[in-house]
């Protein structure tokens, strides 16, 4: 359970880590928009370059990023396979009974696989380089205007940060309970599907009991210290936009422009070189 790479913070001293979390959130949104705007293979070049330079700048090890992709590799392969066989466009390359592969289908599948890969790798860069607290602080700050229409922004933010904070605790708890039940002879990797699901009951029940107990204790502790979300609370770490944040915004804007314009310019450039 400890080895889930997606959504884990990776501590390092880098420019990307130091960026204002609000800016990072915006950058991720822009990046994702860019990925969805891509409609030809050539536009993947700026996306891939942008991602690669972010990874290199952030000093997060490539292996770690690969691991975050590993988790969804199955989904990527599954969707690509479906796309290969269900898109019947252009020339037929191979057919066997009802299974037909066309070159158009291959292209669509490849684009989709690339899109998913870049999406997951890109968004996991946010969680690799930003602490959960940073993400919620950033979200709270971005959502501030919603306060005008009486959205409980701070409540949402504190709920989110508590949730994020509890994920590692609960993972640890699961590990402990699994060990305790294994010590009592439980086995989780034998038998059919139903048997395996049943085998997890002795883990799930204590887990829920303890999650409710923890939630109850936390609520009491917050109450006992008069926690109040409605007043204007001050922060230990105030978010401040610095020069590097503006530079990052600038670079990202260029990235988005490139993604949109490259398919238009590329034929012209090709023409220029072929002359």
């Amino acid at each position: 359970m400890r080895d889930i790479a997606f959504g884990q913070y990776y501590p390092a001293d880098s420019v990307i880590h130091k960026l204002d979390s609000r800016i990072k959130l915006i950058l991720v949104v822009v990046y994702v928009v860019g990925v969805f705007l891509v409609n030809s293979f050539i536009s993947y070049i700026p996306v891939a370059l942008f991602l690669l330079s972010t990874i290199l700048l952030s000093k997060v090890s490539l292996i770690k990023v690969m691991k975050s992709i590993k988790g969804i590799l199955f989904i990527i392969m599954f969707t690509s396979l479906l796309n290969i066989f269900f898109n019947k466009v252009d020339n037929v390359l191979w057919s066997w009974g009802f299974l037909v592969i066309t070159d158009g289908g291959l292209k669509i599948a490849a684009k989709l696989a690339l899109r998913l890969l870049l999406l997951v790798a890109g968004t996991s860069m946010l969680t690799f380089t930003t602490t959960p607290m940073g993400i919620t602080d950033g979200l709270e700050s971005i959502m501030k205007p919603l306060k005008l229409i009486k959205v409980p922004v701070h409540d949402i933010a504190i709920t989110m940060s508590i949730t994020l904070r509890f994920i590692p605790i609960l993972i640890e708890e699961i590990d402990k309970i699994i060990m305790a039940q294994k010590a009592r002879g439980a086995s989780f990797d034998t038998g059919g599907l139903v048997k395996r699901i049943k085998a997890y009951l002795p883990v799930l029940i204590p887990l829920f009991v303890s999650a409710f107990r923890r939630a109850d204790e936390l609520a009491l502790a917050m109450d006992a210290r008069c926690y109040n979300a409605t007043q204007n609370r001050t922060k230990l770490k105030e978010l401040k936009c610095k020069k590097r944040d503006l530079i990052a915004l600038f670079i990202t804007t260029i990235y988005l422009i490139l993604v949109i314009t490259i398919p238009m310019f590329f034929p012209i450039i090709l023409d220029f070189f072929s002359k």
Partner: protein
Amino acid sequence: MSIKVTNLSFIYSPKTPFEKVALDNISFEIAEGETMGIIGSTGSGKSTLIQHLNGLIRTTKGNITVCDIDLTSKRPNLKKLRSLVGMLFQYPEYQLFADTVFKDVCFGPLNFGFSQKAAEEAAEEALRLVGLNFDDVRDRSPFELSGGEKRRVAIAGVLASKPKILVLDEPTAGLDPAGKREMLDLIRSLKGDSIKTVIMISHNMDEIAEYADRVLVMDNGKIIKDSHPRALFSDISMFKETGLKLPHSVNISTLLRARGFEIGTPLNINELLTNICDRMEGSK
């Protein structure tokens, strides 16, 4: 029923920024019949070490043999190992899950291949052994019991599988003084007939001094001392270095020694009193 550990090392999350050496080249042996205490500050590797003894953590470097089962072999017989080594974790009451106490205690023996009848007999025996009123608790939900009762049920759940070696991770944590005493007396009474060897982690030096007949001291993943409690607590310098506490009886004898009143190293209150009385009578 002996345990042999040689050159055991273990690293958590190797090759990441979270890398942590939990065990660093550890070797020791426990013979049948011993009561071994393990002490050390938090994060010194005690829990990691005992989880190895049950095959809950697979050995990555070094060798462990428990009751002639080689844990480094490719497919050790984990079922047999775990039925031989009963493991009681910290706050074991949090692993209870069944809707009745009786079913929860039967869980272990049924997993280890006891027949339904044998498992029920073992469960009843275990519940009586830990001092619960069997007819009173058997059909109650484990979640409506008191803290002390829950812990007894959890222990019964381990004992019901009839282990030969009992490993306990801070069995008295979170109990009131009377509960602590009862727990330790229970552990002491269990040892003998079916349970041959007891390994106990504790932060409470009074418990270790009184109940263990051998003590391992761990610090930063290493064993820095392996000796009889009396020899261990006679050498106070190590405790000053590691920040570990001394048993109250040893503290008192040290204070007395500083004032020129030598009474040796008493390991519990009774010994302390006897030694003081002897000494005073002797000096008359």
